[in-house]
Every structure is written in structure tokens, then in C-alpha cells.
């Protein structure tokens, strides 16, 4: 197992470097941002001086090698074009806020999806099940942006129960948490439901019931445990998406997280910040995937890694 983890960590490094390379070239497809950073009446000399200072006057592959060299040898992600400061601290100082929002979204999602998924599976085709499935479909179809604005209109403007935006107290996390968690709630609930239905009709569950075990025991130790594997996969994926998907939510709710920073960076062509953001998110997702894989082995002793 340890050998497996070590190998996975090594792969992780390559995956992250690969992602950083891909993003490096992708963002530069949108052209050079020089003109966006200089005032309208800048002279040709001033433009040339700026390009030289930023390294834009060098061929792309040279820029790439310089960037990777600094990244690998010094851990230097570069300086933001806009702020002039090192980009990694700029991104990392906003990470706690994003993690907090993602955690709340995750808690809300699990708090709703798991009970509802279970009940839906046990009460198949009841009214409750139908309603739950409709909500799940809406949750997956409605854009976060729209959900967020509607939540603000209802709970902040008309009911005046919650703030529209910002951060500071728990109440600031509720609406963005619901908006961000909606898609995850829907997906998790549907996967849990269908996974449970499949397991409940399996032989070993019928055997357990036939043995006379209580329904509660059957449910927890036989159904849920076996049904949880696909759900854990989905949850693992969703956590990663929550982190990077908070970009839109943070924008709508003026929430000071990483996502807000990166949206501005995208509009302003601040490549370095976008790259730093992707690096951080890639590291987190790779790490989380590793944890999910370990969880598999814990839940299902049939799964071994070599």
C-alpha cells in the first residue's frame, strides 16, 4: 500500500506539471496582454520597454522554459502582471475563504443528498421520490449564476433574512453554499439512489433479510456499505469541482475567495495568476483523488493496489 501511495505521489507531480504546461500555452492563445496594461496614449518605446520587462519579446518556448525552470528550481510561480506581487501568495491567501465556502457547500449537499437519496431509493416511485428526482434534474440543469441571483432576490431582498454578499459571519456562507452545493446535491442524490436500488435487489441483501436481520441493520451494513462506492467516487470528483466551480458563485456573491481573483485575472489577461490558481487547484484535486482511492480500499476489502 505504501509503495502504491508513493508511486501515486510521483505521478501526481507529473500530472500537475503537465496541467501547468497545458494552461501556460492555453492562456497565451488569447494573445499578448501588453496593450491591456498600458494607457491608451503610450508610445511605441514605452510599449517595447514594457514587453521587454515582462519577457514578452522572447519566443514562446523560451518564455515557457524560463517559467518552468523558475517554477521547478525555485518554486517561483511568477509575479502577477497586474499587482506586481508574487502570484502564489495572492492565490493562497484567498484559499481559506474558498475552502470554507466549498466545505459549507459540501456539508449542505451531503446533508440533503444522503437522506433524500436513501428515502428516494426506499420509497421508489412515491410522490417524495418523484419530487426529489425533479429537484435533482433542476439542480443539475439550472446554472449556478441564476440560482445565486434568485436566492439573493428571495432571501436578501424580499425576505431580508440573509445578506446579499460578503464574508465574516456564518450567515454569509448560507446562500452561496446552497448555490454552490446544488449541483453536487443533485448528482450525489441520484447516484446514491440508483446505486442503492441496484444493491437492494442483489442476492446478498435478500439473504440478509431472509436471515431475519432488522431492516435497519440490513440498510446500514449491507445496502449502504455496498452502495457507497460509486457515491464516494462522485463525492471525490465533486469536491474538486466545488473548489474550482466556486469561481462563479464567488463572483455573484462578491465572496473574497480564489475564484473571484481568478475571474478578474482572466478578464485582465493576468496569466500568472491564472496559472498559479490552476496549479493550486490541480495539486488539491490530485491529492483528493489519492484520498478517494485509499478510501475505496478501506470500504471494499476486495480492492487492493499493487
Amino acid at each position, binding site marked *: 500500500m505504501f509503495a502504491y501511495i508513493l508511486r501515486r505521489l510521483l505521478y501526481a507531480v507529473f500530472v500537475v506539471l503537465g496541467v501547468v504546461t497545458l494552461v501556460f500555452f492555453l492562456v497565451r492563445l*488569447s*494573445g499578448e496582454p501588453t496593450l491591456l496594461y498600458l*494607457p491608451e496614449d*503610450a*508610445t511605441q518605446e514605452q510599449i517595447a520597454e514594457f514587453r521587454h520587462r515582462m519577457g514578452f519579446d522572447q519566443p514562446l518556448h523560451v518564455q515557457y522554459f524560463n517559467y518552468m525552470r523558475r517554477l521547478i528550481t525555485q518554486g517561483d510561480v511568477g509575479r502577477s502582471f497586474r499587482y506586481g506581487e508574487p502570484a502564489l501568495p495572492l492565490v493562497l491567501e484567498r484559499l481559506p475563504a474558498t475552502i470554507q465556502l466549498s466545505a459549507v457547500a459540501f456539508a*449542505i449537499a451531503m446533508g440533503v443528498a444522503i437522506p433524500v437519496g436513501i*428515502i428516494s431509493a426506499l420509497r421508489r416511485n412515491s410522490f417524495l421520490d418523484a419530487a426529489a428526482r425533479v429537484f435533482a434534474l433542476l439542480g443539475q440543469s439550472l446554472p449556478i449564476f441564476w440560482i445565486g441571483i434568485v436566492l*439573493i432576490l428571495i432571501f436578501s431582498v424580499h425576505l431580508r433574512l440573509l445578506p446579499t454578499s460578503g464574508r465574516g459571519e456564518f450567515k454569509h456562507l*448560507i446562500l452561496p453554499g446552497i448555490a454552490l452545493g446544488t449541483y453536487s446535491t443533485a448528482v450525489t442524490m441520484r447516484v446514491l439512489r440508483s446505486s442503492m436500488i441496484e444493491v437492494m435487489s442483489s442476492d446478498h441483501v435478500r439473504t440478509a433479510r431472509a436471515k431475519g436481520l432488522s431492516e435497519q441493520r440490513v440498510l446500514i451494513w449491507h445496502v449502504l456499505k455496498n452502495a457507497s462506492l460509486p457515491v464516494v467516487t462522485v463525492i471525490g470528483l465533486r469536491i474538486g469541482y466545488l473548489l474550482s466551480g466556486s469561481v462563479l458563485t464567488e463572483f455573484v456573491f462578491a465572496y473574497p475567495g480564489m475564484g473571484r481573483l481568478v475571474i478578474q485575472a482572466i478578464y*485582465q489577461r493576468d496569466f500568472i495568476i491564472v496559472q498559479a490558481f490552476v496549479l493550486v487547484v490541480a495539486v488539491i484535486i490530485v491529492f483528493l483523488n489519492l484520498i478517494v482511492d485509499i478510501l475505496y480500499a478501506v470500504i471494499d476489502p476486495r480492492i487492493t493496489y499493487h
Partner: protein
Amino acid sequence: MKGYLWRLLIAGVITATILGACAPAQPGGDVTVVTQTVKETVLVEGTPQIVERIITPTPVKEPPTVVFAQGVDATFLQPNIDGSGAQVNIHLSTHDTLFHYNSQGELVPRLAESVEIPDPTTYIFHIKQGVKFHDGTELTSKDVKFTFEQCYLHQDTLLQLGVCYWGPFIETINLIDDYTLELKLNAPNAVLLSRLTQLYIVPEDAVRELGPEGYNENPIGTGPFKFVEWVKDLRLVLEANQEYWDGPPQIGKLIIRPIPEAATRLAALRNGEVDVITNVPPDSIPTLEDNPNTHVKISDAGRLIFITLNPSASPFDNVLVRRAVNHAVDWNAIIESVLGGLGYPTPCPITPNDFPYEALEDICAEKAYEYDPEKAQELLAEAGYPNGFDLLLEGPDGRYLKDAEVLQAVGGYLEQVGIRTTVQPQEWGIYYQERYNGQKVTAGLFGMGNPLFDIDHLMAVHFDPDRRSLYYSTPRLKELIDAGNATPYEDERIEYYREAMNIIMDDAPWMFGYGMMNIIGLSNRVDWEPRPGREDVWLAEFEVIEP
């Protein structure tokens, strides 16, 4: 089983829906009630005695707080790096300039009490005495010199980017005494004083002591507000400077919140979380006007919207075609229907706020292109395009109010005179780079503000071949631009710009469009008038109306 499941569901629902208890707090003045014990001498049967009395003086009301929401947060708190609107709103609060334009559009002294111009390349500034920075030190001429040097002479590596890319036209700066400063330019510059309305004076000692990062986190200036706290992307808190040389602001505290999404900003105003918001979408004006707690202030933003035509490529290399398209579009109708009346036609490339608008009015009236689709078709035929031509009409999407819709409307008008138009609004970054990387845009919508309130700025940006914005110029126009810039004497400048305007109107390098309006939403507890011709919000001028 049923009970167990229901318990599970309820637990899940409760976990998922914990509601906050309180509604957002209303910003406002707090009332402190204080009792005092006073000793008084009273006569009791002819004998003075000292008695104590407990009194409750009139409650002291703390000056109120105003919460202002704009679309972006500051990138820097130190001034003279980024001149964008959101930044300027903040710098105007914490710092001062030597001059500024007042509400009537006149250039008036601020930190500079007066200026002498003995010859066109020499400026002698007399600095106001007794002005204090927020740390208590006094403003003297050395601070002004230091600010200039940071900005103009690139002597400092403090700045990564600068609003100071105006060329090293300053030759020397001499300190004559603590309050007098002499500036020598290497060539006359007509807009130096206008440029100084964008230069915020910083304290040399504090900047040197704190260093650039330190000063950025503690932006000491002479302005009407002092810095208190900055939580990035969340709030900037400023408090009134009670020793402000021009009198302290009426409000006690100013909180600036960056809320990027317009719908959220609007919601925050409606429910009282914020008091003032910028960039209100025009569709929301009725909502705010109908709401008993809010209202809207609309003013001239001083920003031109127009469509540049590329004279280096067919078909716009033919002046007749350029004139034809100017006759093809009914800008008044576009302002009415697309912008809901929020705009005014600008048949010449100048707004009423800019020098020398009045001196050019007659030329403008004479040469303005009237909406005349028949004339447009005649001109097209004369130019050799009786059956029109194919055109790609480009522009930004979401950069300016209703820009994509205006573009569609213009496309519609062009179609009516036989020009087969493909309308292509694009994301701003992409569009902007396309404009300036090889001048690829045949016809493109663009906007231009004028922070100098001087036509020189527009000329330099759009018609000067030394700059990068160039789509159109002529040798004579370039001479006139240089001449207009090189003399500070207004009558001379007017002569040059009159000739220049004649050339521009005859050559029609643009489709001359309209001027934009600025829409600000306010809570009814805030009294404020916008300054015409600008998009900056002078936060020190907020006044809270006592209920």
C-alpha cells in the same frame, strides 16, 4: 423503519438549512447616551452652597457611515499607478491633487494655491501652507517634487505600471522654498495642468520609511478620509479626516465594497446593505425609482461612443464611403430605443465638457452628418458601390452600456442602405488586441473618456501617428495636434483645433455616435450630486440626510 427514516430526513434538512438569525444591520449613526454629574453653586437662603446635579445632555450622535459599492476592488491603495475609475474613486478620498476640475468644469487650485507661468516651459507652483498629511506631518514642496519624480522621471522602481507614461517632458524640478516649486519642461505642454489633476501628492518621508509595500497598506495622504482597514475583495474602510484643510466630510465613516455582479449590487442597495452603487443597468432604473427607499442620479459620463473606420483598407479608403455610412445611421433613434434616452448625440468627436467645445460648436453644427439614408445611397453609388458591399462590424460585448445592442442597431441601419453587415460583438480583451495588433478592424465600436477635459487627449490617442491607437491621421492633422499641444495659450490652441476639426469632419474617419450617461443608485438617506462629465464618484461629497 418509518420513524427512523423520518428522523434521518429531518436531521438532514435541519443540517442543511440553518438560517441566520439576523437581518443585515442598517448602517447609520449610533446614538450614545451619556449622563454627567455637575457641581453648581446655588444660593440657599442667601448662602452659597455647592450642590450636585445629574444631567442628561442631548445625546451625542456619531457622524454617520456610508457604504459605497462598485464593481471592482482596488488593486493598489497607493496612487499614481492605476488610473481606472474604481481606483480614482478611492484615491480621491485619501489623497489630493494640485488642481482639479470643479463641478462647473473649471480648473481650480487645490493643494497648489496658485501657479505662475513666466514662459511656456516654466511653471512655478505655490503650495498651500498648513496642509497636514494623515500622519500629522506638513505638506511641503519636497513632497510634491518627490511625487513628480516617482511618476514622471521614472527614478523609482516602486511602480510596476504607471499612469505616468506621459513621456519624460520634465527637465528639472527646483525647490525654491518650503512652499514653492519650479518646474522646467523641455518643451511647452498645453495640458500639463490638466494632467496634474490626475497626480495625487504623496508624503516623501512616509513613502521612503514604509517602502512601496508598506505604503500600499497604509496610504497616507492629505485627503478627506484616512485609511483604517483593507480586507481585499471584501471592504475598504476609511474614516473622516477631521483636520482636512478644506473642511471635514459630513459623514464619519466610509466603507467601500467591491461587488462585481450588477444584480447583486442592486440587491444590496434595495435591502439597505449598501447606500450607493455605480453602473446601474438602465433596466433597473424603474425598480430603484419605485422603491420608497432609493433613487437614481443620471449624469453625463463624458464618454464618447463611436465607430472607427479603417481608411487603409477598402472600402473605407474612399472618403465618400465614410461619409455615406455617417448619413446612414439615425443615432437619435438608437439613443431613444436602445438606450432608453440615456445618451446624447455627439456629431463631432468632443463632449460639452471638453476644451474647446464652445469654440468648435459652429463647425460642428455646419458639418454634422444628418441622418439621410438616400444621401448615403447616393454617395455609395458615386463611390462605386451602387449595390453596397459586405462589411464586418465589430465591437465589445458588455464593456459599455448596451454596446452589443447598439452595434446590432447600427448594423440594421447599414443593411437598409445596402451594406450587407455581419455584426460581431466580442469579449473586450480579444477585441481590444485585435484593434491594436496590426489594425485589423475595418469598422469597430469604441468608447473614450476624457479625464483631461481637453481635446488634446482625444487627438493624442486617436489621431497621432506616434501613438499606437492609430487608424487615421494626416500630416497636416499631426502638425496641428503637435501645435495645439505645444502652446499653453488658449486662443492659439483654438485656432489649431478649429482647423483640425474641419479636417476631421470632412474626412469622416469615424461614425460619430453619442455621449454616454453615468447612472448611480442611491439610498434616500444619502444626498449627493454627480459632477458632470466624469465617471468618478467624489465620495467626500456624500451627505447623510438626518431622518
